[in-house]
């Protein structure tokens, strides 16, 4: 009888305890992924900020007003374009647009493009895949730059997105993330 009463106790205990620990471990893993996602987006946002703020210098000095700045600058502009690629050849790293004079949509689009450039080298599918791997809700479409703006010749990047837990057994709410960075434009 005794034996019968204890039979399955270990199994039952294991089911409860191990499961709890496993859940804990998975939650830990989820946190890890969240941290990683935040790190990756922070790094990319910072690089985007720096890149775009410097981009303005090229746009202002060499590209846009070519021929009116002076022949020397014109030559240099052409040289730089040939060296680093033009906006047409590599839109994720170079832009000729005066996006900083545009509206929030234009700013957001430019930011997103550059963000993708620094995230995946300009491959949108890859970027989407990476973001989804990091549990960013809707991947690339889930990135929201619409609150970004330019004020006092400074670019303020405001990146909003949602993260979901890797192991969301209780259907917990998404984690809303907002990351901010700023960089003065090289005008």
């Amino acid at each position, binding site marked *: 009888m005794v034996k019968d009463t*204890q039979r399955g106790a270990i199994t039952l*205990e*294991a089911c409860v305890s191990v499961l709890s620990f496993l859940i804990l471990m998975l939650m*830990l893993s989820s946190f890890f992924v969240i*941290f990683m996602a935040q*790190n990756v987006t922070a790094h990319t946002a910072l690089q985007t900020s*720096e890149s775009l703020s410097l981009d303005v210098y090229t746009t202002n000095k060499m590209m846009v007003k070519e021929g009116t700045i002076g022949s020397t600058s014109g030559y240099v502009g052409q040289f730089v374009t040939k060296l680093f690629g033009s906006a047409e050849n590599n839109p994720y790293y170079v832009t000729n647009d005066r996006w900083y004079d545009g509206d929030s949509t234009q700013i957001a689009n430019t930011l997103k493009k550059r963000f993708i450039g620094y995230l995946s080298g300009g491959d949108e599918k890859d970027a989407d895949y990476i973001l989804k791997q990091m549990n960013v809700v809707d991947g690339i479409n889930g990135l929201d730059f619409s609150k970004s703006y330019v004020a006092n010749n400074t670019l303020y990047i405001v990146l909003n997105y949602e993260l979901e837990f890797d192991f969301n057994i209780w259907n917990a709410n998404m984690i809303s993330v907002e990351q901010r960075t700023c960089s003065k434009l090289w005008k």
Partner: protein
Amino acid sequence: MHMKRRKKTALSCVNGMKGAISLFLAVLMTPFLTIAMLLVETGRYNSAVSVFDEALGVTSVSILANYDKYLKDRWGLFALDQGLDLQETYEQTLNVNSSIMGNTIKVNNTIVEGMYNLADPDILRAQVLEYCKLNAPTKLATEFVNISDLIGKLEKIGSIGNIFSLLSSGVDVLDSGITLLESHEKMKESAKKLEELIGKYESGYIDFENAVNTLIAKLNRIIELEALIPQLKNELTDWEAYLEELQAIEEKTDEDREEIKETKNIISDLKQSIRSYERELTNTKNSIPGLRTSAQTEQTDYAELLRTISKELENFKTQAEKCVSAAKSIQSDLLNGAATAAALEADLAGKKKTLEQAKKDLAAMEKEGFSQNDSSYSAGLDYKLALEEEVTELELQYGMYNAGKTGIGEMADSLKTTFDNYSEATLDEYVKAFDQLREKVLALNISSITASSTRVTRGVYKSTPIAGFIASDEIDKYLKEQEEELKSGSLSALVDGLVATYNQLMGLSVFFEDNLSSVIDTKYYDQNLGGLPGGTAADGGILAVIKNVASVFSTAISAFTDSDSALEILLGLKDAFVQGLDVIESIVQILLDFVQNVYSLLTGYDRLYYSTYMAYNLPCRTDFSDTSGDVSLRTMTGYSLGRESLPSDMNKPNIPGFNELVGLINTLTSYMGMTGKDYTFSGAELEYMLFGSSSEIANQLYVFVVLYLIRLASNIPSITSNVEVQALATTATIGYPVVIALYIFLEPLVQTVLLVNGVDQHLVPNKVYLSPSGLPSLVGALYSYCKLSEAQAEELGNCMVEAFSTSQDDYDYTKLKMEYQTDGSSSGKALFELSYREYCFILLLLTVSEKNQLARLSNLVQMETLYYYKQQKAAFTFDLKKSYSFLSVEADISVNQMLPSLLNASRFDITREHYRGY
């Protein structure tokens, strides 16, 4: 049923396997989880620090975006805006950027400092070179063809040694001319002496004749008296006897008494006569020794006079020989080593033909596609250049020969007329005759002269007339003709014209732009900023040489202008020429030393880069516009310097012009170390880069003089071989080398005046402004560029118009001027012509050290930027020493943790150092 009570033990809580797994997990998994969590935390920490580093980088780049706009736009230099609160701005930006990780990172403290300011020459150099690596090549690509051509021409400065030697042979011709005239002068003096001796000859002879003949006469008188006195005495005795007879008559009649009386009278008369004759005899005898002495003296004097005449005739003959010899040596000097004139002409024609063929060969090679690097093409090019030099030298020699020949021809013609009646042999005969005459005179022994000696007669002792020489009037006439020829001929007209042009030019306000006359207030910078960043970077460079040149040049000019006789003119010409030639040679040597350094200076292209930067970013005097009254320049950095960029100097100096080049140098040196009231220059900044004085005037004058010297040295072959100059110099006959030398001095002066006033010039131009065809363009350029009125320009041109009219029969200035206005006044820069700025660029390359260039640049940046911000009424005083190009950041941060037990642990605090710059 009795149940057995179980004994309580330490493990009594253990109920078999119950809780084993929980226990197992609790014991094992907790540390495991802790370690796992720690690893996660460490990862978070490392990631956070890494992201913070990035945030620091982005923040620094963001702060660096606050660069000084003026420094960037005007100078192409990056430095932080001095109006920025660096610490506060940095902290604000960093706080935003570091918050990208949420609350993970807490910035505790940040220290931000600027470093590597632009006053540091290494930093300035690095930025200038960085800027120029992309910009300078494009600028140089468009300009370097001309510049390399110029450097090539400068390299040729050393190959004009033969020209100096040829010109020096002109001094030999002048020397012969001087000897010719000197001999004429001496011959004239000799003739004058001979003419004076003609009178002395007569009087000397008369004295001699009188003395000797008087002696002889006296001796004869003694004889006569010695014979007469005894006779009278006998007669007296007779009369006394007769008287006694009469007195013895006792009865004397009246007749007797009358007879006695008459006899007594006769006796008395006789006695008186005898006494008188005896006295005369005594006196005459006494006078004989004196008369002999006198005769001997006259004989000696006369003999000496005859010797003088003979010697003077010989002296005349010597001077005459020298004249003839000088005329002959001029001929050989003119040929200067060539066997004959025909040989010289043939040599020149041959060389010209060979040169033409060499040019054709080169043209053919070019058509075949040979490049300049090809060895055979290069050899052909060298051969052509060598031939060109030879032809230039031969043309100079031939020109000098022809000119000298003409001059000597004229001299020789006059000489022929003068020497028409002159015969050396005849003169020799006269000399001989006088020597013989003298011997004859001396042969007369005065002590042995007796009453019977032969009297001195003209036929014997004055048989030879003074003749055989050329009358002094004739020689004087010849000299006056030569003087007239020198003074009123082409030589004088040309020299007068050139000297007048020089004098008038020196009196004009064309050597510096008087609207650019700022003098820096160095005391302001000393008191407020601890001095200019580059210090006082003024460097005399070749100023010492220039001083000597100016001094010698003035001496040479005055040596000519102060002369009035033909001989003095020639001597003046010779002095001027010799001194001038020495100066030119010394200048050439100095410039050669500079030029020989060209390629070592250009090693690595760095010098080329920063010199390009200076030359094309700094305004110079030619950027000043009279119309707008301001400097206008679009710099290499694309910045437009205009009305507001630089101060307009209101205190123009009152320097209307300079009397001499020495005056110019004196003004230069007196302005050199001045302290004024200006913050920056008005527009002559490129000139400051070349000299470094706080006075804009001194800087402009220095550049003028250096450019003049370079042009002087490099234009010698082109001026000496210029067809028009040669033609003009030929009309100056023996003054050919002098005219050439004056052109060598003055033409570059004129060119430099035009160049510094904005007229582009080839380093070695084909045309000569001070020539008949070049004069209209000179007058036009003076009027258009040099702020002269039309009347002033014409007045300067007129200095040469008269000279050309004298030299050329068909010279028509008005016609040439019309032709120039119709055809020759086309504007635009011709191939290989360089602007004033481009010449300054070459000077920078060759004469200013890197250290000085950078020091002066930092001073200019400081001064101009300070002025700009003063105009902008900025809240700060611009100081280049605070223009930082780098940021140094030290940030203390804490990384917040997930694990509560580790909160505030020191291992989660870290200090990050960060450096970022332009």
